[in-house]
């Protein structure tokens, strides 16, 4: 089927329009010269310039980045080791099922349930350790918890597709366990680890619910800031900020696509 029916094309175009029209509207009104209302009053980049002098927004951007970078690094390390541990050892069927179940929990349960359980757990832990006050540390812990599962699943699927040949060959040539890991398994796994890490990073940037439940007054991230702002009323400055976030998303999606397609070709 190389040519689609005109009706299918028309429906598909409507659906794409449905997906993009709201986003386009945000971009259009981010360069609109008027501050109030949605009437076109000429082109301006003023709202973008003002973003960079807004302490609150700069602070939120910094928090978002710190949260994403720290949680991704920890989750990628933990998830990779976990994936190797699950796939490369002769666990019994029962153990495997249990591990698999725990790993799939953060993927299948609605994120609001994870968020609610973390609020209660942090509330109880706070009675013993004072670091569990609502804030950046709690948010990092929350993000790592769902990221680890995704990283481990991605890395494990790469491990499965690698098979055992190369590692067996390395063992036959008297590779020790650390040498095998460091010089054979990890380099072969690298595309999977990078893919898992990028997935984790994007999930963290994208997350709203876990952050919303675990954040404190000093740890506002960009999604939280936008949410609070639009509940008070939309402004061109928020449109400008959202358009920037959208542009960053596009760059990351296109970049990831390029990367995965190049490694797939190899």
């Amino acid at each position, binding site marked *: 089927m190389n040519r*689609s029916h005109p*009706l299918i094309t028309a429906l598909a175009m409507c659906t794409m329009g449905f997906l993009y029209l709201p986003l386009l509207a945000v971009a259009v009104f981010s360069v609109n010269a008027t501050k109030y209302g949605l009437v076109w009053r000429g082109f301006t980049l003023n709202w973008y310039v003002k973003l960079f002098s807004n302490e609150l927004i700069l602070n939120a951007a910094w928090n978002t980045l710190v949260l994403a970078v720290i949680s991704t690094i920890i989750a990628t390390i933990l998830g990779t*080791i976990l994936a190797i541990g699950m796939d490369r050892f*002769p666990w019994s069927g029962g153990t495997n099922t249990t591990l698999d179940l725990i790993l799939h929990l953060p993927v299948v349960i609605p994120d609001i*349930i994870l968020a609610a359980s973390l609020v209660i757990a942090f509330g109880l832990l706070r009675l013993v350790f004072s670091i569990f006050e609502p804030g950046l540390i709690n948010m990092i812990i929350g993000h790592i*918890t769902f990221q680890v599962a995704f990283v481990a699943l991605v890395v494990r699927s790469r491990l499965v597709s690698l098979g055992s040949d190369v590692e067996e060959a390395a063992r036959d040539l008297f590779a020790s*366990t650390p040498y095998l890991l460091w010089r054979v398994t990890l380099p072969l796994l690298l595309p999977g680890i990078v893919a898992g890490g990028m997935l984790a990073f994007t999930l963290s940037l994208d997350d709203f619910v876990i952050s919303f*439940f675990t954040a404190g007054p000093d740890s506002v991230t960009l999604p939280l800031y936008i*949410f609070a702002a639009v509940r008070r009323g939309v402004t061109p400055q928020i449109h400008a900020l959202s358009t920037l976030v959208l542009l960053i998303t596009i760059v990351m999606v296109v970049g990831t696509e390029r990367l995965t397609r190049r490694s797939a070709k190899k």
Partner: protein
Amino acid sequence: MDKLLVWYGELTTNRRLLKRGLMFLSPGMLWLLIFLVLPGLMLIAASFAGRGAYGELEWHFTFENYKRLAGFGIFGWTADYLMIVWRSVWVAFITTIVSVVLSYPLCFFIAGRSERTRYLWLTLVIIPFWTNMVIRAYAWFLILAPELPVAKLAAFLGIVPPGSALYPSVFAVYLGMVSMFLPFVTLPLYSSVERIDWALVEAAQDLYASKVRVFMQAILPQTLPGLSVGVILTFVPAMGMFVVPDLLGGAKYMLVGNLIQQQFGSSRDWAFGAAISIGLMILTMFSLYLYRRKSKGVNLV
């Protein structure tokens, strides 16, 4: 009994292997036990606890929270909470159906492009998938604003009074939900549509099957793997969604997600919030179970 075995080309014993395996498993698994399984158990425990003077948990065993969720309040029985739960299931159901109906033509369209433009179209579907949901939800504010054509048209048709916005409303919630979850169906469905064996479809057409029959018996079974992933990816998170109803539905159209958020936010009733979360969890598990049984049946046909 510790037998020698060869594992990945290494001569070793089972016990030594498992000891090393445990070393690999423990950091990640400990993390998940402490911050996922343990909080889950605490959530269950909290749902049976009482509410202290400041909304904190008070540890005495009670079914009070579940009774409240079932509608037995201080002033007798009301269906308020059950209505919210039912409404969430209904919204998730409609969202899933509409997303599936819209996804099929989109997938056929993309699959019909040449290889180069196909990636472009796919990327266009992936971008909203990864765009922050707060932005995608509030973007509808602009489309539905009173100054813009959609609201003007609705006012012209007499659906809303002139000069009023189309949000917050039930309509806006559905609009937001479908646009939010559509890529979650399209992307997995496409991976199946891409692999359709069109010879089977042509064969059905050669044998004078009606269009409906061609779709039901030649196309649908081939796309079932992708479709089932898409349906689960949509239905389960849609039930717990709270950003879209919060922004686009306001107080008019509350869903379970909003109810949970309210207990941890303004109402400060953690125990009740925990009970609702457990209710949502049971609903999730139940729909996954039903779905697996049903899709198994479909596979046999």
